[in-house]
């Protein structure tokens, strides 16, 4: 099992003599001259207090918890950490390796897709005397790097590591796969281990995001993903990682190839679906096209291309990381036996068109309470409240709609559902109704919580009539009673407000 690096990850507290010499053996090293080493001048301790929202009770937050890691000082008086480290943060503080006190920090930028964030100390003088690091380059399979940790004394502890695999792998955010370096590294437990920098000489090779104790293997966010992130935030407005918005299938199956009329040796992947309003749709890509090349690189039967540094890796790297958003990539596709040229715009996923958001972070879940009926919009964050096995345990209908949302009509709007009923005088007999999709309220079609709020202003014949997708089909509330008992409902359940219709979309910081 791959575990996140939390402070109690390592069972044994041991202090090894840092193997400094091994770390020095890098490809960049010049014979007979000692290679540069990372120094404590380029790092800071980061303590983040985080508090996630409770989607099951959207008006409350869960208990706060701490994450302690090591941030890397980069130019502009900024500190780089993983985004996971500060997700849903309430307070972030920085501390030098040899402490001279703590200083509060702001999150200047965060990109959950590439799992990176920039912190800025509130006291600009705090980083005086530190030395910004440069990004590494030329990391390949076999490159020797070192993972940096801190002793309690502030001394640097370096663990030698070797890059065993360079591949496109899953990131913590759902559905994101970006370049990762996998390291083989025998790490010991130390404090501040949630984020750890990995160095190639004195240059930053990446940030560690996962460590598996049994196989002693670590996945890191590599320098190239960091470089892409820094370039994207350098010029406002901020743009997320570019994505094509397709799913594809390999074309290795010889029977399938003959059926498609593909020639022997002809490469490419079969397009299975194109998401609504996605870049691929704008490019004119269609289901059943065979993508043969992207950006001048030939795509093989499994969807890989030959990268000059890393060998065969999935072609999504060309779209997400190797190029910045804003431009276009030429594509050639095979359609009905003809080769056609398309231009794929490099742009991030448009979250305003997303029916069920993959990840709601750093903002409270939206809800609207009418009588005791609690309405919410479907998001994967809601489904994740069912725990690690949420795909099996969460309500099957909602999980299905979330997973296959691309099959819904593009103008479907959000999926509003009755998440629970707070027992009250208005909701007598409705206590057991939960997790059912709302179709109409007072005859008005519901496509977002604003629709609920608007419809609730127009009761029919003195009733709030809520029409549901399945059993029981309809619920009625006494409109007058609902408005008269609203304060009482709020007080008796300790609700801060009967609705939260705050910002509907994920906004990157800033």
């Amino acid at each position: 099992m791959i575990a996140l690096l939390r402070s109690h990850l390592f069972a044994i507290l041991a202090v090894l003599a840092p193997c400094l010499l091994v770390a020095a053996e890098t490809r960049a090293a010049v014979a007979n001259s000692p290679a540069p080493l990372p120094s404590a001048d380029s790092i800071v301790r980061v303590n983040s207090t985080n508090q996630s929202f409770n989607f099951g009770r959207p008006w409350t937050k869960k208990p706060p918890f701490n994450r302690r890691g090591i941030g890397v000082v980069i130019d502009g008086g900024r500190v780089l950490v993983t985004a996971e480290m500060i997700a849903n943060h309430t307070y972030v503080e920085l501390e030098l390796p040899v402490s001279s006190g703590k200083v509060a920090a702001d999150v200047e930028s965060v990109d959950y897709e590439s799992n990176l964030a920039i912190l800025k100390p509130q006291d600009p003088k705090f980083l005086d005397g530190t030395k910004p690091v440069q990004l590494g380059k030329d990391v390949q399979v076999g490159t020797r790097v070192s993972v940096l940790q801190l002793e309690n004394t502030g001394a640097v502890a370096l663990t030698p590591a070797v890059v065993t695999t360079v591949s496109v792998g899953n990131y913590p955010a759902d559905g994101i796969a970006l370049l990762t370096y996998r390291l083989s590294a025998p790490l010991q437990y130390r404090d501040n281990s949630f984020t750890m920098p990995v160095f190639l000489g004195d240059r930053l090779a990446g940030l560690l995001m996962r460590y598996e104790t049994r196989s002693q293997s670590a996945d890191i966010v590599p320098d190239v993903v960091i470089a892409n992130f820094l370039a994207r935030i350098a010029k406002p407005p901020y743009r997320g990682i570019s994505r094509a918005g397709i799913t594809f299938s390999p074309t290795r199956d010889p029977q399938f190839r003959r059926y498609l009329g593909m020639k022997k040796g002809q490469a490419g992947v079969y397009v299975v679906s194109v998401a609504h309003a996605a870049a691929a749709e704008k490019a004119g890509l269609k289901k059943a096209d065979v993508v043969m090349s992207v950006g001048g690189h030939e795509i093989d039967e499994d969807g890989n291309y030959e990268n000059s540094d890393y060998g065969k890796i999935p072609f999504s790297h060309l779209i997400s990381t190797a190029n910045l958003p804003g431009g276009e990539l030429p594509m050639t596709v095979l359609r009905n036996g003809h080769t056609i040229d398309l231009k794929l715009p490099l742009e991030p996923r448009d979250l305003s068109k997303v029916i069920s958001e993959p990840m709601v972070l750093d903002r409270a879940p939206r809800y609207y309470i009418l009588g005791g009926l609690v309405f919410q919009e479907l998001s994967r964050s809601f489904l994740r409240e069912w725990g690690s096995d949420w795909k099996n345990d969460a309500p099957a209908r909602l999980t299905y709609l979330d997973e296959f949302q691309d099959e819904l009509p593009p103008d479907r709007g959000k999926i509003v559902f009755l998440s629970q009923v707070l027992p009250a005088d208005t909701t007598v007999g409705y206590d057991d109704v939960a997790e059912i999709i709302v179709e109409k309220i007072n005859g008005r079609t519901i496509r977002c919580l604003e629709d609920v709020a608007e419809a609730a202003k127009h009761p029919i014949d003195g009733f709030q009539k809520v029409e549901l997708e399945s059993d029981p089909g309809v619920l009625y509330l006494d409109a007058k009673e609902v408005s008269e008992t609203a304060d009482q409902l709020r007080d008796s359940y300790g609700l801060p407000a009967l609705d939260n219709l705050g910002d509907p979309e994920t906004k990157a910081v800033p």
Partner: protein
Amino acid sequence: MTQFFRAAIFLLPLISAFLSDTQAATSDLIRRSLVRIQTVSQEADYSTPWNPGSVEESIGTGFVVADDRILTNAHVVSNARVIWITREGDANRYRARIQHIAHDCDLAVLVPSNPDFFKGMLPLDFNGIPALESNVMVYGYPIGGDRASVTRGIVSRVEFQEYSHSGADSHLVIQIDAAINPGNSGGPVVQDGKVIGVAFQGYSGDVAQNTGYMIPTTVIKRFLTDIADGRYDHYVDLAITTFPLYNSAARRALGLPDDGQGVMVSDIYGGGSADGILKPRDVILTIDGHAVASDGTVELDDSNVQMAEVVERKFKGDKVDLGLIRDGRPLKLTIPLTEPFPFNIFANAYDVKPRYVLFGGLVFQPLSEDFVNATTLKNSRTRYYYDHFLENDLYKERPEIVILSNILSDPVNAYADEFYQSIVDTINGAKIKTLDDVADALAKPSEYYVIEFLGASRPLVLEAKAVAAARDRIRSRYGVAKESNLKP
């Protein structure tokens, strides 16, 4: 969790009840009508459907009823290959066969191959629903010894409950606190010398103590009446769901007074008895003249029971009279009980072989309770289609959800893994609504078999030549005795 007595291991209770002289005499009579049933059964194997399945042996109880028959539970003799019966004081084993079996109410009638079996045995008579707190005796052959056993208890409650044997049918049950253990199944529960129920299910000791259930005589008599014409017609229900009407706003919106009467029709299953007759939001006020309370109960035989109990006591071909409020106006309707609801895939199946089609090493099977219990549904679309089969009317488009249930690995299907457990949508353009459609589509000659699965996925293409070349190889390598079973 409810368990069957023949499966679970329980602690062995001792019989401590003191029997008076008259009770002893009755007891002797009852014991002489008891039958020990030993069944060799073979359970279908849904994960390798061409295999005959594993054989097991179990013990249950039965008793003699009128017309030289033996009454027992369906689960005592389900999937039977051989049934042996013995009686008290007779060393011989007799063969028996099933005359009628009703899996929806867990009852069966057996007849011995040799009528001499009944010599000296008296048929037992039935009585009605016993009073709460009244004493009852349970007879049978539970675990802990070979001879007949008797335990005593009182009637704890009378209620509608699920019958675990089918897992999808609910009928009246009577809860008693007498010790009931594995092997008691099918045995008579007796009061004043007459049978008032058949012991059939309970909780294992780590869930609840002294909680045993029996099938009441209303259900037993209905079964015996149903089979009187030589055929079992099953229960026929309205195939609707209702929603209680406690909410005063809902009552006023539906045009009802605040009198605690009536339930709202919330869902009507297409293809069921009420399809095309009832509408969503109809309010049922009366059923066969019995007033329906807002919690969905009616008063029947001086006790409050679910209104379904009224329909329960009827037979195929009978009618149900409903008094409704529709759109604020009163209305009287009659619903004929024509056929049992045909799309119930959630009931455990017995005495049938799994349906499947094997083609090019691909195994196609329809989703059913037994199949789902034998496998793990990892495909979330398939799981949704199963879970919401009735609720979201998915059966209307697909009476059977046919999936690629297994892949017998072979070069012909080397790239089929990504379709594992996916729902078959079309084959060569033909819509797949049942397993028979799969068999038909694959039987038609074609150069390619193009199988489209539900959802965004490429088609799976098999070349007829490759399938033909792989056929014998797959059959012999995987020991497939038969390539399909389409019989329900």
